[in-house]
């Protein structure tokens, strides 16, 4: 056994021997990868703004933001974006009203009640549900949800916001369930124990201690899901039609912002014209709406976060 290094007082240096090139190169690569996301945002913003500038030369922003009629391709045309915003709102809020309680309940079941074995099966199934192409959900709405709705509400239209909201709700439910489950499971066991130790029932522990403590993660899952609902295209188009509508009802056809973007970008409208440029104006609007929602919710998260460590 060599006893050299421990024993002898041979001189050695702990000084820096040259730079660690490999380390520096790797760090640079990692940093570049991180910056990709910033570049993406910059590219999106520049592209959308540049293209919508052409649109706003032709159409007054006042009309765009506050107009209540969206018929850019009809003759006479009108460019009030509010009906599209309203359509998106109906779908998003409707989907959230369905998916948030149900998704949260599923998350609670998985994290607080289900056995490990059940969880090991149900979670992947839900994850699979999250990956089903949205077109499939669209046909599901049209051939299953709408007919069921029509027997319940006879004067509902074939294309209606309700059906769209329901399938989008079903679609985002798994996202909420799996991600919230992760968040709830991250709440330390010690908090649950503390609650049980003062004689609480599982309902009380879950709703009053665990969910509030995991709220930041739970809210993050809501957020991701809602973003997805806002951005959803195919399912909504199939279920809810494409009629811009500013009426206070879920029983009629609507059009969302994304549905409009798809319609224009895949339709027969000539590129270069005002009609085509509306695409960018709407996309810009959509980008900033999602940005606004994100910033607001980050702020809310910051305020309501119950830090437990």
């Amino acid at each position, binding site marked *: 056994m060599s006893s050299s290094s421990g024993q002898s007082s041979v001189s050695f240096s702990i000084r820096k021997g040259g730079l660690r090139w490999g380390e520096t190169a790797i760090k640079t690569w990692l940093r570049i990868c991180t910056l990709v996301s910033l570049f993406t945002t910059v590219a999106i913003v520049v592209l959308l703004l540049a293209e919508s500038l052409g649109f706003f030369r032709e159409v007054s922003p006042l009309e765009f933001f506050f107009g209540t*009629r969206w*018929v*850019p*391709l*009809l*003759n*006479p*045309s009108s460019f009030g974006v509010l009906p599209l915003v309203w359509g998106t709102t109906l779908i998003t809020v409707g989907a959230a009203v369905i998916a948030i309680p149900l998704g949260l309940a599923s998350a609670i079941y998985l994290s607080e009640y289900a056995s490990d074995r059940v969880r090991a099966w149900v979670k992947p199934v839900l994850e699979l549900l999250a990956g089903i192409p949205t077109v499939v959900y669209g046909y599901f709405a*049209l051939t299953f949800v709408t007919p069921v709705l*029509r027997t319940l509400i006879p004067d509902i*239209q*074939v*294309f209606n916001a309700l059906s769209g909201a329901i399938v989008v709700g079903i679609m985002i439910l798994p996202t909420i369930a799996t991600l919230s489950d992760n968040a709830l499971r991250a709440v330390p066991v010690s908090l649950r124990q503390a609650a049980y130790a003062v004689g609480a029932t599982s309902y009380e522990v879950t709703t009053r201690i665990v969910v509030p403590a995991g709220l930041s993660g739970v809210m993050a899952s809501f957020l991701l899901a809602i973003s997805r609902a806002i951005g959803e295209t195919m399912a909504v*188009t*199939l279920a809810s*039609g*494409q*009629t*811009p*509508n500013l009426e206070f009802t879920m029983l009629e*056809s609507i*059009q969302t912002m994304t549905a409009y973007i798809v*319609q*224009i*970008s*895949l*339709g*027969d*409208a*000539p*590129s*270069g*014209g005002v*009609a*085509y440029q509306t695409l960018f104006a709407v996309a810009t609007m959509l980008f900033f709406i999602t940005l606004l929602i994100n910033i607001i919710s980050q702020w809310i998260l910051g305020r309501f976060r119950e830090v437990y460590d």
Partner: protein
Amino acid sequence: SDDNSTAAAGDSSDATALTGTVRLDGSSTVFPISEAIAEEFQILNQGVRVTVGSSGTGGGFSKFMAGETDINNASRAVKTEEIALGTAKGVEYLELSVAFDGLSIVVNPANTWVDALTVAELKSIWEPGSTVDSWNDVRPEWPDKPLHLYGPGTDSGTFDYFTEVVVGSTGAARPDYTASENDNILVQGVAGDEGGLGFFGFAYYEHSASQLKLIPVDGGNGPVAPTAETINNGSYSPLSRPLFIYVSKASAARPEVRAFVDFYLDSAPALVTDVGYIPLPADQYAAGKSTFAAFH
């Protein structure tokens, strides 16, 4: 080099020598025709790769006029903005009609009162600012049942054409109709709505005839219902429209593109029917071929 395997190829043996790529894009309405032609063409010409996209007439033209595609499928004629794009890039092109699409006016089978509609009545129903909300607003003797409208999306060539010939101005229509890009969905809409009235491609009616009631249209010479014959001979007027392909001059210099276009015009009469559209009168294909021959 070895002729053993190609011996059976017979008459197409000279075509097998072709290689290269033919790129089509454009209207989703014309897509099924081009797809059928591409399919047959590829069977005969294994060396040529044909791709067909469906990013819309407008999206297709923006690629076509940028020189990114060889042929553009169009459900309407090219527009001035698009021509300007091509001029800027020096793209020259030729327009060729390839088929007719008859727009069918349909109502729900439970609708027993309508047996025909005049173009003027259609106009009063569809024009901007129309006050027709129930069937008895169209003809007083019809019942007071709510009238709901279904039609293709406002940016589709079909819708453009319909408004042009019925209302008299491209894109002029009331906004409160139920729109969908997908004609199957419109079929479902009218089939499920007793007061529904819709229009869409003839093929979609044909395949859902049991769920719908077809309405003959009176364009001034008495009511005519769309059939292969009435569309082909022009008596179903004004609601039958031509579909086009646009061929770029630069691309037409390539033998595989030329072969493809010739094959297109040769086999269109048979294949167009296969996919539910109506062929042009035979002489028009011949005229197209000779125009194309002069073009390259």
